[in-house]
């Protein structure tokens, strides 16, 4: 359904060109869930925005293609793109509090989403019914009352449900979820993920889930792409990567998930900081923080290497395989 080939998105800042998305390729079939994992600032969100053609200034998509049902979205005009946004591909944002417009009833906002894509031919009198239905679908109680609430009157979890209702309103084929549970507490996180899973199962909507929580990925996704400094470092099926991570970065990420009941050991962390994307070193961007680094890592660009079918790693350790 969605196929991204060699996507490059760069930000042209005063300090130089920042390659926020550097040669990303991924594929998502109908009804699949793909996890996009990485630290803050590694280009996860920019990848999503690139799919929708909403990369903010001074960013620009400079190469590659985004094929959605065989059509290249990057070649579409802005009015053609509007037809896709919210309609075929919709997005759920990280912080529901700021994503809802503070001055309108949440119900009106869901209704607005229905109205944007008029070709769906919903009669005016049916709109409200449809909104109530959507509110009920995302598991909120008493739709009639919820409709007439302002965003600030709802809790974070309820707001996120409203956002999911907005995302669902036009029955999209693909939902881009940009850390949908980061701003919520843990029990609500589980509920929201259950809701997304239910939508995925019942309706067959494809989901790209951006997260930095590998636990969520393990539970929820079929495929995973691990990103570091704008590049894919490891990609494959969840079952492969979670149980047997190949790339030192993925291994580090997995180790840093705290375990309940483990009081003796400190939480593992990957030493060092996320590199400055404007001044990336030659070779592997993870080199300074890597525990298995070798002199060769710094020499030249490391290619993605297929270690098993559908499982690719960008690391010198596996070059000989």
């Amino acid at each position, binding site marked *: 359904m969605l196929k991204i080939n060699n996507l490059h998105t760069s930000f042209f800042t005063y300090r130089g060109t920042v390659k926020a998305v550097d040669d990303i390729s991924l594929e998502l079939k109908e009804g699949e869930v793909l996890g996009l994992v990485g630290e803050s600032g590694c280009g996860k969100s920019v990848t999503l925005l690139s799919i929708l053609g909403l990369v903010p200034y001074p960013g620009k998509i400079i190469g590659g293609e985004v094929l959605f049902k065989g059509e290249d979205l990057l070649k579409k005009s802005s009015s053609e793109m509007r037809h896709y*946004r919210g309609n075929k591909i919709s997005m759920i944002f990280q912080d529901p509090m700021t994503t809802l417009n503070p001055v309108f009833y949440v119900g009106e906002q869901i209704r607005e*989403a229905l109205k*944007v894509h008029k070709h769906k031919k919903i009669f005016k009198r049916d709109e409200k019914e449809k909104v109530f*239905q959507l509110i009920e679908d995302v598991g909120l109680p008493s739709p009639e009352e919820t409709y007439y609430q302002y965003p600030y009157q709802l809790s974070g979890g309820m707001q996120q449900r409203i956002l999911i209702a907005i995302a669902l309103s036009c029955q999209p084929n693909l939902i881009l979820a940009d850390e949908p549970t980061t701003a919520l507490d843990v029990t609500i996180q589980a509920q929201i993920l259950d809701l997304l899973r239910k939508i995925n199962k019942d309706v067959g909507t494809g989901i790209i889930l951006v997260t930095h929580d590998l636990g969520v990925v393990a539970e929820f996704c079929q495929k995973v792409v691990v990103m570091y400094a704008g590049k894919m470092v490891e990609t494959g099926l969840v079952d492969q990567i979670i149980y047997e991570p190949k790339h030192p970065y993925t291994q580090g990420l997995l180790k840093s998930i705290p375990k309940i009941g483990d009081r003796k050991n400190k939480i593992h962390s990957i030493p060092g900081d996320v590199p400055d994307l404007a001044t990336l070193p030659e070779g592997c961007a993870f080199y300074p923080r890597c525990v298995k680094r070798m002199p060769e890592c710094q020499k030249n660009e490391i290619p993605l290497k297929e270690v098993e079918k559908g499982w690719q790693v960008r690391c010198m350790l596996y070059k000989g395989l």
Partner: protein
Amino acid sequence: MTELYINEKSSNKTIKYSKGKMYWGRFKHFLKELTHCRTAFLGAIIVLSFILVAIFASSISPHDPIKASIVNRLKPPFWIEGGNADYPLGTDEIGRDILSRIIYGGRISILVGLVTVGISGFIGTLLGSFAGYYRGRFDEILSRFSDLLLSFPYLIFAIFLMSIVGPGFFNLIVILCFKSWVNFFRLSRGEMISEKTKEYVEAAQALGESDIKIMFKEILPNIIHSILVLATLRVGYFIILEASLSFLGLGIQPPTPAWGSMINSGRAYMLSSWWVSTIPGIALLILVLSINLLGEGLRDILDPRLKLE
């Protein structure tokens, strides 16, 4: 793809609310806040009564504001010896009733204030929204032009232009609007720039809403409160400006009563008959003060950031 509905329960309960109710609810809330803020409430009542008096001027005013009667010239107000209740606020140098002239003059003042703010507010907000939303060349040009206009003192600028195009109501409105849209432009541009970075705008874009819709249906309702406050305060400012121009003989022309020209005509009699220019001055003072009180009150009510402090 299967149908979206996950649980096929249809809700058949009666719908108790409507969109109109949302606005009515907000308006009621606003009125409640307004009555809590005493000075703003006082300002609102005085402004409202000035407006009502201006609307019903023809039935309220005791005399014809233009008709002169030399016999009754320079009669003092009723509370001073020699005055009578027939001319409660006295008469001017050619025997016209000052109260009637103030009532009719208020019409001009309020009309000038409202029309100017209406037109310049509309133009300024429209241009400011586009400039703030799209930035780029369009914004650069308009911003530099507005800086240019702001570098002139307003009154001197208006005097200069009025003496070129000549006095008159229509010319006055055009000249006042020519510069005053700049304030609305700058305000709405700035607000638009800061609102545009908020996530709800990004979300609206991701929903496929058009730019025009995002500007005027998503962002504008979030910034309209500061524009309203500015508009209220500007009404008072334009009333003063109109009075200044009329005082200089460049605004509304006699015999049409305007407070500025009334103050001017009484100048020569300031020592013997002070009321001729003082009373229109007091009317001006009360109206503009009330408008400013109302404007300040609106700012307190509409800007939640101020409430927290």
